[in-house]
C-alpha cells in the first residue's frame, strides 16, 4: 500500500523526466499523459485497498492516506490525466505556431508534472506542517506555468498569483502554528504534535481560544489558494493567462487541494468548538464568494475569466455546503468537488481549442463554434449546462443535495439565497457561452493541428470528462458511494 501511495505521487513526474531528457512536445506530452494515467490507476487501487476505511499510516504520520485524502487524490489524478491528454496537441500546436519555443515547452512539462506530483503528495501526508510545505511548493510550480508565455500580461498575472498566494499560505502557516500551540497542554512529542489523526483524536483537549484563531487563519490562508472572496483577486488573472490545460489544473486540482486543507482544519475545529463558530466562518466566506463570482460573471469579455469566476462561485458553494454540515452537507460538498473538477477541466480544455482556432480569448469574437468545430462546440455547450447544475449532469445532483442539507440544518434563508444566486449565475454564464456556440462562424478558420490524430487527441479528454459527468448525474457508483461515506466518517461532523 505504501508503494501504491508513492506511485500516485511520483507518477506525474514522467513528464518532467521526459522534458529534461530533451523530448519534443509530442513525446513529452505522451509521457506526461502516461504518467498521469499510472497515477490515476494507482489512486483507484489505493482507494480500493483502503477498504473499510482503515487508513494507511507510516513514517510517523508523514505518510497518511484515509478515505478523504484518497478521494481528493483520485480527483486530482483524474484532472491531471485529462489536462495532460489535452496538453499533448495544445502545446504541440503552440510550438508549431511559433508561440512557444522548445525551451518553453520543456519548462511547461517540467512544471506541469511537478505541480501535479506536489499536489498529490500534499493529499497523502498527515503532517500539517508538511501539508503547508507541499502546498506552498505547488504554488511556486504552478506560478511558473502561469508566467510561461512570458508576455507582460502573463508575467504580471504570475507575479500577482505568486505573491498573493505565498502571503496567504504564510498566514495559513501562522494558523498551523496556533493549532500546534493550542495542543501544548497535550505534552506531545514534536513529530506527533502536527499529525492530523492524533490532533483529531485529542481535539477535546485543545485550548479553545488559540484553536479559534488557528481555524480562522487557516481558512483565510488556505482560502487564498481556494479563491474564496475576498482573497480571490489573483484567480481570474492567473486562470486567464495560463496555458489552457494549466488553467484546468489550477481550477480543478489546485483549488480542491486548498479546500482539502480547510476540511482538515475544520474537522479539528469542529471536534473542540462545536459547529456554530466554524459554520459562521464558512458561510460568510462561502456566500461572499458566490456573490462575487456570480456578479463578475455578468460582464462579457475574456471567456477564461468567466470560467475563473465560475470557479470562485463553485468554491463558495462547497464552503457553504461544509458550513451546512451534517452527512448530507458533507456528501454534497465532496460530490460537488468531484463534479466541478470534471466540468471545469472540460470547459478549460475546450477553451484551449477555441483560443487556438480563433486566436482570441474574447467571448464576443467567437461565433458559430457548433458549426465550425462541432465536437469542441458541443463539449463547451454541454459542459456549460453541466457546470451550471442542470440535469442530467452530476452537478445537478450535488447542488440539490447541498440545498437539501441547507434546509435540513440552517435557517431556510441560506438555501433560498443559494438558489437565487445559482439562478443569477446560470443566466450570466449561459448568456456568454451560448453566444459563442451559436451564429455563423468566420469564413476562414485554419486548423492549428497538423494531423487528424491531433484533433482526436484534443477531443478525447472532452468526451471522457463529459461521459463521467453524465454517469455521475444518473447514478453514483457503489465504490464511490462507499468512499464518500468513509470520508464523512473521517471528517466526523
Amino acid at each position, binding site marked *: 500500500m505504501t508503494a501504491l501511495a508513492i506511485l500516485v505521487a511520483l507518477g506525474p513526474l514522467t513528464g518532467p523526466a521526459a522534458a529534461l531528457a530533451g523530448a519534443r512536445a509530442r513525446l513529452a506530452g505522451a509521457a506526461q499523459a502516461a504518467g498521469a494515467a499510472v497515477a490515476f490507476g494507482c489512486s483507484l487501487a489505493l482507494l480500493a485497498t483502503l477498504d473499510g476505511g482503515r487508513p494507511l499510516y507510516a513514517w510517523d504520520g508523514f505518510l497518511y492516506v484515509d478515505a478523504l485524502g484518497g478521494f481528493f487524490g483520485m480527483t486530482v489524478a483524474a484532472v491531471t490525466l485529462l489536462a495532460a491528454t489535452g496538453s499533448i496537441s495544445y502545446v504541440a500546436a503552440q510550438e508549431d505556431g511559433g508561440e512557444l519555443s522548445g525551451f518553453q515547452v520543456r519548462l511547461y512539462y517540467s512544471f506541469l508534472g511537478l505541480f501535479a506530483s506536489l499536489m498529490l503528495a500534499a493529499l497523502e501526508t498527515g*503532517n500539517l506542517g508538511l501539508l503547508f510545505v507541499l502546498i506552498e511548493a505547488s504554488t511556486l510550480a504552478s506560478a511558473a506555468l502561469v508566467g510561461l508565455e512570458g508576455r507582460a500580461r502573463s*508575467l504580471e498575472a504570475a507575479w500577482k498569483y505568486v505573491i498573493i498566494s505565498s502571503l496567504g499560505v504564510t*498566514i495559513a*502557516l501562522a494558523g498551523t502554528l496556533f493549532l500546534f*500551540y493550542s495542543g501544548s497542554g497535550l505534552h506531545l512529542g514534536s513529530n506527533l504534535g502536527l499529525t492530523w489523526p492524533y490532533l483529531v483524536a485529542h481535539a477535546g483537549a485543545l485550548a479553545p481560544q488559540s484553536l479559534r484563531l488557528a481555524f480562522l487563519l487557516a481558512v483565510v490562508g488556505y482560502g487564498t489558494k481556494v479563491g474564496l472572496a475576498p482573497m480571490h483577486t489573483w484567480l481570474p488573472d492567473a486562470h486567464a493567462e495560463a496555458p489552457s490545460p494549466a488553467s484546468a489544473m489550477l481550477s480543478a486540482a489546485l483549488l480542491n487541494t486548498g479546500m482539502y486543507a480547510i476540511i482538515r482544519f475544520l474537522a479539528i475545529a469542529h471536534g473542540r468548538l462545536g459547529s456554530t463558530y466554524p459554520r459562521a466562518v464558512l458561510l460568510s466566506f462561502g456566500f461572499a464568494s458566490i456573490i462575487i463570482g456570480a456578479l463578475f460573471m455578468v460582464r462579457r469579455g475574456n471567456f477564461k475569466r468567466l470560467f475563473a469566476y465560475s470557479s470562485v462561485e463553485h468554491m463558495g458553494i462547497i464552503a457553504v455546503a461544509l458550513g451546512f454540515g451534517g452527512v448530507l452537507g458533507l456528501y454534497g460538498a465532496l460530490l460537488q468537488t468531484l463534479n466541478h473538477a470534471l466540468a471545469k477541466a472540460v470547459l478549460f480544455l475546450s477553451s484551449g481549442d477555441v483560443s487556438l482556432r480563433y486566436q482570441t480569448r474574447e467571448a464576443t469574437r467567437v461565433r458559430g463554434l457548433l458549426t465550425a468545430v462541432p465536437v469542441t462546440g458541443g463539449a463547451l455547450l454541454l459542459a456549460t449546462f453541466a457546470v451550471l447544475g442542470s440535469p442530467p449532469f452530476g452537478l445537478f445532483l450535488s447542488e440539490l443535495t447541498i440545498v437539501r442539507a441547507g434546509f435540513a440544518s440552517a435557517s431556510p434563508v441560506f438555501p433560498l439565497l443559494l438558489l437565487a444566486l445559482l439562478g443569477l449565475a446560470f443566466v450570466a454564464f449561459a448568456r456568454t457561452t451560448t453566444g459563442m456556440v451559436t451564429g455563423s462562424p468566420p469564413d476562414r478558420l485554419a486548423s492549428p493541428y497538423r494531423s487528424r490524430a491531433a484533433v482526436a487527441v484534443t477531443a478525447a479528454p472532452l468526451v471522457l470528462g463529459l461521459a463521467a459527468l453524465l454517469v455521475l448525474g444518473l447514478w453514483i457508483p457503489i465504490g464511490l458511494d462507499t468512499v464518500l461515506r468513509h470520508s464523512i466518517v473521517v471528517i466526523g461532523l
Partner: protein
Amino acid sequence: MENLDATSAAGVLLDLSGVLILLLAFACLASKLFNRYVVYYGAQSVVLSFAAATAAVAFRSVELWILAVLTLAIKGIAIPLAARRLLVTRLALKRDAAMSAGLSTSLIAGGALTAFAYLVTRPALLPHGTVAAAVVPLSTAVILLGCLSMVVRRHTVAQLIGWLIVENGVFLGAITLVATFPFIVEAGIFLDIVAGVLIMVVFVSGLTRQLAEASAAELRELRG
C-alpha cells in the same frame, strides 16, 4: 513542552530580539530606498537567528541550533546578497516612488496595527508571565506590518521584501510558541522560501525588462 519564564535570561533576550525585529520592520516601513529595505531585512534576519540560538540554548534543542544557522545563512546572508545583486544593482533601483500612501500615514497605520496585535493576542490566549505572552504579540505585529508594507508599496521588489518580513514574523512566533516544528518541515519551509525568492526574482526581472522596453518604445514614437 515547557514554557519559558519571561524573567529568565533567555526570556529577556528573546523579548529583546522580538522588539528589535519589530523596530526593524518599522524601519523598513519608514524607508524609501531599495537598498535600505534589503539592509533592514538582512538585519532583521540576523536578529531572528540570534533569537533562535537563544531558544536553542534554553530548550537544549539541536534542531533549533540548525534552524539558527539556516536562518543566518539563508535569510541573513544569501537572500539579501542575492536581492542586492540580482535586483537592486542590476535593475538600477534607487528610490521607491510607487507608494499608495505617504510615509507618515503608513507609520501611523503601523502603530495602530501594533496596538491591534496586542489587543488580539494578549488577553485570553496566552498564559501570563511566559515569554510567549511577550513575544507572540510582537510577532503578530511584525506579520501585520509586513502585510501593510505589501499593501502600501506597489513596486514588486518592495512587495517581495514585505512577504519576507511576514515570513520572519511567523518564524519569531514559531520559535517561542512551539519551540520546534519537526525538522523535515523546517527544512521544507526554508526550501520553499528559497524557491519562492528565486521564482519571484525571475518574474520581477522579466516584468521590469518588459516595462523598460514599453517605455522605450513610447519614447521612440514621440520622436520628432
